[in-house]
């Protein structure tokens, strides 16, 4: 029997190992490319084991090193962390396979570098998932930013550099100017960087200041892409599609909302928030973001840009769920991390597949191509349904819980917001399969999609359906998290 500490180590170190080994295999592409999926399988196995132990009521803990008195690097698997860890590691398997197909199909340069930083980003995401204190969280938050920078600027042209600059300046800027002082503020008032299931601030901070501290956190976590600081996400679309998939489904944005949820639940604590109403303003900001970006998404013709705005909107669901400060909404938000990840990664895979197979990136070009790549568009259709929240897709559960949560905390307006946004979702996502299947084809294009791209796309697509039927373990997990509160 492997001890839980070793399990944590296995889970977080296997992507790092992949990252370190890849450069040595740059001359042997096959070995190098197979490394990613293997690492993914190992770390998913670890993540599943960890989740099971959390379901059994354990809380695995690992103290890595002590920097100075009261400052250390440590890992703890919370229910929330277990969910995010699982999402990140499982989806990495498919993303890794997919990226092999994409990179080869597209004949990209600097593939080794790409895989190195790809694995590095996953490593950082997993470390965020299992972060045991605020410092560890912050460190790997930054590592994630820096490791994705070479991925975003992979093409190294003028556009990529510009995007990279925006990406770095927003993410690093916000985190250094706001997130870090917020963390230090918490350190100063509580005297420790630890987090706890019920929040650590209650009784330590004057409730009048709580909204300001919350604001520093909310705007400091640039990766959660709330409205004034969301610009980096569409800009980062210049990256290759596997990166976009990683950014939008697996690692970066999920790390952002995960951090947000963690701060809301484990630093402030839901009770503290509902008692003081410190997060009321956040509810409205998130709702605003949710609607505005949905509307912007309608006007985007570039497929990846539309998906990017859709992502921003979906992230706000999760932030909103946390801000509502009710246990049901928190459950919903946590579930939405999973379901949205599965749905959105499918959509991005499809976008990449279309680009590799048919060299198209505009929605208006897609007219009538549904028949030439039927499986791909079917996958897109199912993924969209999940995002919209139609049963029997996984996405329906999370929306259901979110709405219940909104009702529980008495925000009737928020339910209305959810409804409107669902309609908008349906409009901008359904347009794509509709164009593909029902519009008239304008010109004939030779389509060739590699198997390594099709297979992962279909698997994640199936996952979205499976999630509807096998949501129970996750629900249990979230209820453990909420019951502890």
């Amino acid at each position, binding site marked *: 029997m492997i001890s839980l500490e070793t399990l944590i180590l296995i889970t977080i170190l296997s992507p790092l190992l992949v990252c370190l080994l890849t450069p040595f295999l740059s001359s042997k592409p096959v070995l190098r490319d197979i490394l990613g999926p293997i690492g993914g399988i190992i770390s998913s196995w670890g993540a599943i084991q960890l989740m099971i132990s959390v379901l059994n009521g354990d809380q695995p803990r690992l103290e890595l090193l002590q*920097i*100075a008195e009261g400052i250390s690097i440590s890992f703890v698997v919370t229910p929330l962390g277990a969910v995010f860890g699982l999402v990140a590691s499982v989806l990495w398997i498919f993303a890794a396979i997919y990226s092999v197909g994409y990179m080869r199909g597209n004949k990209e340069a600097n593939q080794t570098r790409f895989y190195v930083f790809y694995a590095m980003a996953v490593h950082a995401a997993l470390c965020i998932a299992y972060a045991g204190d605020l410092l560890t969280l*912050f460190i790997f938050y930054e590592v994630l930013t820096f490791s994705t920078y070479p991925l975003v600027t992979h093409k190294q042209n003028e556009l990529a550099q510009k995007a*990279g*600059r925006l990406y770095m*300046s927003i993410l690093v800027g916000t985190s250094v*100017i706001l997130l*870090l002082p917020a963390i230090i503020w918490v350190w100063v008032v509580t005297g420790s960087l630890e987090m706890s299931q019920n929040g650590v601030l209650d009784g330590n901070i004057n409730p009048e200041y709580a909204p300001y501290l919350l604001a520093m956190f909310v705007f400091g976590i640039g990766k959660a892409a709330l409205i004034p600081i969301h610009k980096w996400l569409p800009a980062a679309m210049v990256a290759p599609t596997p990166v976009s998939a990683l950014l939008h489904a697996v690692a970066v944005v999920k790390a952002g909302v995960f951090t947000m949820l963690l701060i809301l639940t484990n630093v402030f604590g839901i009770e503290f928030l509902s008692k003081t109403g410190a997060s009321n303003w956040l509810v409205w900001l998130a709702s605003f973001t949710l609607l505005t970006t949905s509307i912007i998404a309608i006007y985007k013709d570039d497929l990846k840009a539309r998906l990017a705005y859709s992502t921003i909107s979906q992230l706000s669901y999760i932030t909103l769920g946390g801000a509502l400060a009710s246990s049901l909404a928190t459950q919903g938000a946590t579930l939405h991390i999973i379901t949205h990840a599965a749905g959105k990664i499918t959509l991005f895979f499809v976008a990449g597949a279309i680009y590799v197979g048919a060299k198209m990136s505009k929605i208006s070009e897609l007219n009538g191509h549904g028949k030439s790549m039927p499986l791909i568009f079917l996958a897109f259709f199912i993924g969209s349904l999940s995002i919209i929240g139609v049963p029997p897709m996984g996405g329906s559960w999370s929306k259901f819980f979110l709405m219940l949560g909104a009702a529980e905390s008495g925000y009737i307006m928020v339910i209305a917001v959810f409804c409107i946004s669902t309609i908008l979702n349906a409009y901008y996502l359904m347009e794509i399969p509709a164009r593909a299947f029902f519009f008239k084809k304008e010109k004939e294009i030779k389509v060739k999609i590699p198997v390594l791209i099709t297979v992962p796309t279909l698997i994640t697509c199936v996952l979205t359906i499976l999630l509807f039927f096998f949501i129970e373990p996750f629900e249990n997990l979230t209820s453990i998290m909420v019951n502890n509160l």
Partner: protein
Amino acid sequence: MTDILIKNLPILVVLCPLMMSLIVVLIPNIFLSWLLTLVSTFVAFIFSILLYQEVQIYSSISYALGNWAPPIGIEYVIDKVSIIPIIIITLIGFLTTIFSSKMMPNEINEASISKVYSLWLLAIAGLIGLVTTGDAFNLFVFLEISSLASVALVAMGAQKDKQALVAAYNYLIIGAVGATLYVIGVGLLYGITGTLNMADLSERIIDLKNNKALIAGFGFMIVGIMVKAAIFPMHIWLPKAYAYAPSAVSVLLAATATKASLYILARILFSIFDISDTLITNTLTYVILPLSILAMFAGTIMAIYEKDIKRLLAHSSVAQIGYITLAFAIGTKASIAAGFIHMFNHALIKGALFMAITSISFYIQKRVTLNNLSGLGKTMPITFFCFVICSLSLVGLPLTAGFISKLYLIKASISAEGIWIALLILFSSALSVIYLWKMIEALWLHQPKKKIIIKEKPIIYISLLVITFLNIYFGLDASFIVDSSFEAAEKLVGVSK
């Protein structure tokens, strides 16, 4: 024998480079003079480590030169405060000497090298002497040794670029004015107390509250040292002096010279005078605090608009000195400790950054500007790697030494002055990302104009690697520097604060 060694450590750590400089000047062989320099700096480093251990046991060592009891004779004081700059200087001195082995022959003609190494040792010895001494006038003498030697070293850059001469000249004149102001201050204090020994002085000025000559003397000393420490707006000599000095000299000066002066500043403010004195609190809040904040921003903004990399780093030094003085100005135990932590870490960071940039200029054989950094990141992976790590450390990202200092600085400022100073610190360090990122982007993303093939030489990058390693090491296990800085701060402001 070991008894004698241990007993005389405080003087030996200075004598070792000092006497060696007298010998090195006579040796015409380049390699031999380098080797002797290396050996003596290494021995000095070992001595400083031994001293550190001694200080851990005895807390404060007083060494009476010539065996004359302190107020009569000159005293060397090594306590938990002064050991920090001693370790910085000897460590950096040793590492830069390794680094200089290829740089010196490249930039300085063969006939002068042994003399240059002699001056090099004198600069190091002067700095060590300056921080060890407990006598206000002896401090001036060693200040002059180090500054004359460093001026001459800076002027050696003229063999590459004539601007070095003007830089050295300004350094000399401004430095001499600073030193003379300091001497006036010491004179005024001496005139009213009759003593030059710092410890004795601090006792005898207690009865002299509100004495005008005391205030003026204090003011002159502080201004003189501020000039030497390049505190805004007395920093004008610094950027050019660092930028046009020969490579190895830039590294040495950037990492050590101002640190010694900053230490003296702390010593005057908190040790000779008393933090509870209104004179000091007023000086801190109304003079040093605003100047430090100005320095933080002025230095950073100048650096953002600078194209010449060595000058850019020098401007950034001005800003970083601002952080250190800001920490002193807040004036609590925690903040002074933060100042010492940053003093140590900044020496490591700036030393490494200058090393990386000057080794690039060694390989490409011209001044490094933003434009000709293009694409060198790939041709010089080791240097580039170290450069990136140390840039991150300068910004203060976690797991690097820079983070520890920022962390303690911010924590101290939040608990003392509220959030706004902390926000200013963070804002200026976020601004510093801009100029660092410009360099990294140029190194990494821009296409080189010509294909340049460079083979990195181990003798050049070894000390860069060591400093980078230390940057990471002190980011992971900061207990050494954090503990010693807190002890130093406690020694300076007393247990009460």
